[in-house]
């Protein structure tokens, strides 16, 4: 059954003009292309009613308001989307939230109606990364070409490049993966992480 076209409310807060990107990180990192202002209002929702019910269930799981108002904090938005099987980067999430200020992340809330179009937008990008992609990626760090990477190096990379992970997150990810020499066999590492 086709869902009614939902008129999404204006997402809170008001969408600011896209901020100019800060001075690009030192070369040779390529500049992140500036995106046009995100217009979620015009997005038609393509989810089925069943799917929406399922999203609601997941959304409710993360609702921590004492009276169950069906609201989550901005900082939880990414988690809920990921829990539903999507894979946005942190930057994607911030964009879809309207590039809020850092202090807003823990103080502002969004409700389910506002969340849905954001989820819709995120669900469009389908690049999840295959097993081969991961292997290719990690091979970069395989100095000796023997199928292993140095755990320490991987930790360093994950904590300093891209969307940096915290030490805790890295620990959790790598728990039990390094052998006595601190090396990781990355094909089995990837198999392990992809098996959930």
């Amino acid at each position: 059954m086709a869902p009614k076209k939902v008129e999404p409310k204006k997402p809170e807060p008001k969408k600011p003009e896209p901020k100019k990107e800060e001075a690009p990180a030192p070369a040779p990192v390529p500049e992140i292309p500036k995106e046009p202002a995100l217009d979620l209002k015009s997005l038609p929702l393509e989810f089925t009613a069943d799917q929406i019910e399922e999203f609601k269930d997941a959304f409710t799981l993360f609702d921590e308001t004492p009276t169950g108002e069906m609201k989550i904090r901005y900082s939880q938005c990414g988690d809920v989307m990921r829990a539903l099987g999507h894979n946005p980067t942190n930057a994607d999430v911030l964009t879809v939230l309207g590039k809020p200020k850092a202090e807003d992340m823990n103080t502002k809330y969004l409700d389910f109606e506002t969340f849905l179009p954001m989820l819709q937008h995120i669900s469009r990008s389908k690049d999840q990364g295959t097993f081969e992609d991961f292997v290719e990626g990690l091979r970069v760090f395989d100095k000796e070409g023997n199928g292993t990477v140095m755990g320490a190096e991987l930790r360093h990379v994950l904590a300093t490049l891209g969307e940096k992970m915290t030490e805790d997150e890295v620990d959790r990810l790598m728990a039990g993966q390094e052998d006595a020499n601190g090396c990781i066999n990355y094909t089995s590492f990837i198999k392990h992480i992809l098996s959930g």
Partner: protein
Amino acid sequence: MGCGVTKNNAFNKRYDKAMKAAVMIQRWYRQYAARMEMRRRYTWNIFQSMEYADLQDQIKLYNFLGYLMDNFTPSSSERNLISHIFRENEVCRDAEWERFFNYSNIDVPDIYSGPRLTFPLDMDQAAGLVEAFKNKQQLHSRYVLQLLLETWKLLRGLPNINRVSTCHSKEITVCGDLHGQLEDLLLIFYKNGMPSMEKPYVFNGDYVDRGKDSIEILLILFAFLLVYPGDVYLNRGNHEDHIINLRYGFTKEVLGKYKLHGKRILKLLQKIFSWLPLVTVIDHRVLIVHGGISDTTELALIARVDRHRYVSAMKPPKKKTPSRSSLYADSERYDEMIICRNRTGSMTFPKQFSARDSFQRRSLQDFSRTVARTVEEEFEVRRRQAQFSMSSFSQSHRILGSVPSCESEPDSTEVIDTSDDDWKQILDLLWSDPMSQDGCVPNEVRGGGCYWGPDVTEDFLNRHNLQLIIRSHECKQDGYEFCHNRKVLTLFSASNYYEIGSNRGAFVRLGPDLVPYFVQYQATSMIRGLSFPQSVKRTEHTALKVLREQLFVHKSDLLSAFQELDKENTGLICLSDWASAIERVLHLDLPWRVLHPQLVSSTTDGMLDYHGWFRDLALKNHSSEYIEQSMLETLYKHRSTLETIFRIVDTDNSGLISFEDFRQTLKLLSAYLKMEISDEVINELVISTDTNNDGSIDIDEFMEAFRLVDKGRLERGKSLFKFKQEYQHLPQEEETSQTADSKGPQISQGPPSQTAGSLGTHAEDCSSSQTGDLCDISVVVPPQ
């Protein structure tokens, strides 16, 4: 420029790749973490709703007892059983009790290597006791009785309200529920130091039940109480109640550990529990109470009650009416009826709740539909009971048999109402829970106490000039949680309460500034070596297993709900219907659509073959054809009621009941459930469980048959056991085959008897893949 540019390009390319790899992994990781978080959350929800379901079991028991009182016939055999259940309470004066609890003729053999206590106790002995229990020693019953007697004497002199002060710059440590989990108490002492004059402690009730070291916890706390009476404060919890103990494991623990003197120990504890103070107040500013408050809670009244008359939540004190005085044998029976009458009140308060709160606040109406009675029938029953209680004493008295002659009480003819009010005050203190809406309504989930709102907190604090309420009674994932604008703090000190990894425990320290300082912990001996995702998965696995059990128990209702939706009888329903049907039947307010991949192994085109699904949950009945599926399901559903009745009936606490009592109990239960249970079936059950061949049934063995055995967990348990053996310093937590009144299905560690040896005939091997973790569930009914 040639060389440099090429090098730069190559470098850039590699850098790009590295970046991409990093971003990919990071992105993947965050998704993984979010999914883990979701699983952790719904696992928690499952446990909480299971606890709710378990509480409903308790209400089932009350209802069944009510039914018994209402419907027994005067045939001689049933009369005996019922008088068994409602046997008279002995009445003696304190001096006579002291003689009964006399320990001095109990000899301690030379080979006993545990602590030998001398009184008065001192700090070294208390610390020695802690050390002994840490080393799995057991205190000899002589010393147990002696220690308990001293405790009883001390408690009798304490007021209802403990008053503590943080002067002299003392920091006071407050602990919540411990529930027999000795490891947590040891962890608290390790982190915080043992009680002393410099380190005062308040313990907020629920020391016993569920965990396996309840008696040890009590002995430690009482020992410190005796050594530092001015610095150790104990509040009573709702589990400091001998009837609750019957259901939740403490009684069984004591009788198991103290085979000869267990009964005496329990009787003495019954008195001690009733003498525990009700609340503690720090600096006239902070109230510490186990459950909470209601809109009628008044400390001035609390201070005046005779707290020791309130032995059990199931038994209000006797009223002073003349009609009662000569019918003393009936007192327990009368008390039971009063309970039921009082509980009519809660059934007249159905309330509309938001979806979020709904599972917490089911009215008894919803519940009783899943039991075989409608609300109207319930009301009818209660009305009849009320009439019965007021008018037909002589009749009941004749039927129940002889009555000892007692002097009539010298009091007046009026019913003194204060005992009712007092009782309500105490129930409210020990059983209430906070809610987010304003107001105060009866607590139908627990069957006693109320739910109180932020306005009630505000009013209460103002009236009494207090600033904070610290309470326990509810498990919190992080060990503590504020509510009501940070005016109410829930503190829970039993970590891993539902399952390993389910929650942390916490304690709080308050200095003269009364600013709380929290310490959280989690007893980790079992999860050392398990990574975080592994422990989430373990916990989730247990939660799902328990959930499947609930689904199984409601199979017939679910089947009708599905068939209602499947009008064309295709045997298929869509997932959305599946989810809403389950929610309608179970009322657990769980995210079924999120859970479905864990509960449903396969669908075609989004449609579920529900008969096939039920086959996955089905009983595998290996014994006779006499006992049919639905019968077993029903018995399974009411197994905890059955077991509690068995234990009540087992008056000499031997663990055995006679054929006849067993038979009658089943007959009564089946009549109550409006379910036919023929004599053949009963005989079948009896024969299959009477392994002693001596005409008596071993209660434990019978309940064994009603465990749901999960082979996958058995395997995992075995490998974990092996894992433990490699780490000698881990406490040897035996997974005993606890009976069904504990948290949920447990595994059995080794066959207790010949019948269990034939366990191998059930359940196929479970695959170990994630969704394939649906293990076959079967009830093991021993073969003929």
